[in-house]
């Protein structure tokens, strides 16, 4: 708390602005959390109780989990999603930050042009890209392969843009000191620059992972083989085939949020502001 603010008194009046802000935040929180609670609640209901809108199920049961986890396809889709999202995330984190570092810290002719070209791809909506991607995948024989699902996302303009902004805040002194100590340029990036932008890197990793974990449109188009479905595509096929068994879909969805939560919990501690500021000035 701001030390200059009114000292904490037992009956200190709370400013009306605060109350308004809390109310808005609280309502926002309710709006965000309710669907998740319903998802979890529905996953604990038996088929007959699905339309009973009680938040706490009358007879909670783990039966749906047993059913979904027992279905071999779910495990496969889960694995597919983990694989795709992980590989794409690693690739993005590596290549985006490498490109961004080069654009941020080296002066070479055409640097601005390259950056603008990369940025301009951000303006093109996915829907427009899907057809060329599909044609490309089809010509190269990438349909119904993991690579086919992954290739459009292996590098992203957004990631390059985000990381470039952060690399520009890394003082040149840090890099030059390493250069004098004898590190080659790749080692300078890897050992000095990258650790200094960990917060941005975590953000990029989380965004990319989540984006790919929930990706639906492109994986749906590029795969026809059920064994290559990612989780969202697979869950949607649940709905079509089995006359919408909400309790099973919700169970699948609830399971699908687990990795997201884990990822967030794991990366959260890296999202520490100003890690690098400490080394710069006294």
């Amino acid at each position: 708390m701001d030390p200059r603010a009114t000292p904490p008194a037992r009956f200190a009046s709370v400013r009306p602005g605060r109350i308004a802000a809390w109310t808005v935040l609280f309502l926002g929180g309710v709006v965000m959390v309710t669907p998740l609670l319903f998802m979890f609640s529905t996953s604990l209901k038996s088929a007959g109780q699905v339309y009973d809108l009680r938040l706490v199920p009358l007879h909670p049961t783990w039966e749906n989990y047993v059913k979904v986890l027992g279905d071999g396809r779910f495990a496969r889709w889960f694995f597919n999603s983990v694989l795709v999202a992980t590989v794409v995330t690693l690739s993005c984190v590596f290549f985006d930050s490498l490109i961004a570092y080069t654009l941020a810290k080296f002066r070479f002719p055409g640097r601005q042009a390259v950056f603008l070209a990369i940025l301009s791809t951000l303006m093109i909506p996915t829907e427009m890209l899907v057809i060329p991607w599909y044609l490309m995948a089809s010509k190269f024989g990438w349909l119904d392969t993991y690579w086919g699902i992954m290739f459009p996302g292996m590098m992203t303009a957004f990631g390059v843009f985000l990381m470039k902004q952060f690399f520009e805040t890394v003082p040149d002194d840090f890099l030059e000191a390493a250069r004098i100590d004898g590190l080659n340029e790749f080692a300078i990036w890897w050992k000095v620059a990258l650790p200094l932008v960990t917060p941005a890197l975590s953000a990029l990793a989380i965004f990319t992972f989540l984006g790919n974990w929930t990706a639906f449109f492109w994986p749906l188009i590029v795969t026809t083989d059920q064994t290559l479905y990612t989780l969202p595509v697979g869950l949607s096929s649940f709905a079509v085939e089995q006359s919408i068994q909400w309790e099973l879909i919700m169970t699948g969805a609830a399971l699908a949020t687990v990795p997201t939560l884990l990822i967030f919990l794991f990366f959260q501690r890296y999202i520490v502001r100003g890690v690098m500021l400490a080394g710069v000035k006294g």
Partner: protein
Amino acid sequence: MMAAIELQKVVKRYGPIETVHGIDLSIADGEFVVLVGPSGCGKSTTLRMIAGLEEISAGTLRIGGAVMNEREPKHRNIAMVFQNYAIYPHLTVAQNIGFGLYTSKLSKAEKQARIAETARMLSLEPYLERRPAALSGGQRQRVAIGRAMVRDPVAFLFDEPLSNLDAQLRGQMRLEIKQLHQRLGRTVVFVTHDQVEAMSLADRIVVMRDGHILQVGTPMELYNRPGDVFTARFIGTPEMNMIEATVGPGGLDFGPNAGAVQAPQGSGMPAMASPGQAVSLGVRPQELQLCSDSDQAGPMSVRGVVRVAEPQGSETFVVLDLPSGQIVARAPSIHAYSPGQPLRFTMAPTSIRLFDKQTGHLLQ
């Protein structure tokens, strides 16, 4: 390992703009040289060219006799300490110091020993496992120096390393750096814009301005015989007084204000200038002697009215209004000086320097 550093006609150009104009400088092995000048004078660029962080546009750089122009920084066997310390926040003190040994082929145990030895010399032993965020400014500075030392380079380059520290710490670190130099005996090139730092650290000072070297000399040479007006004013605090005059037939003519500054008549004023030449007379506040009006004034004396007195304890600096401008004089603190009080100071002819008004050069 000899590390004489030699610059011959070294030029730095950024596109069409030349910022360092063909400077020549020889730094002896083991010497402590300070490059000093106002910002934008080319001192940091020169240092960075020695380090290999900036390309040399023209001219030759030799370290230990070998031409270094095209060598990468890591092959020059020099170490550099940066203004921002450039110690890595994600590494511990030990790891930061160890970074200096990145390319070294020493065994792990030897590296550990080196790091420990360096930490001992810099009194950093208790902090080896800490991260920079948990260190004070002075400790961070020592880590940066440790990282430079651990490699045992032939020369150290310092780029304004003390400018982020507060005044007290700066004085302390200055002392430590000087002692370190005495102990290690390595060549040091130190860049600063602070003339006090330059005076107290350097074996020789290089005064730079606008990409040129104005003067090279020991601190006392620069203090006593500055080669031009710029150096004269830059070196020494408070700065040297400049009094405008014209060379007259028998001495200096101070214009219609002759009453304020008495021209010497046949005082043996150096006949270094041609009659009619416009000159600036430079005299340091410390070189002015307070005398009472009735005293036999020396061959040169000034008389003015106290505007402000600044007691410093052991001495008092008095700002005097002369008809021709303002000067600062040092006066003993045993007296009190009040605004409006007339005072007379005399100066010895030996402490007077004459500079050409046009070129700013010392006349000798």
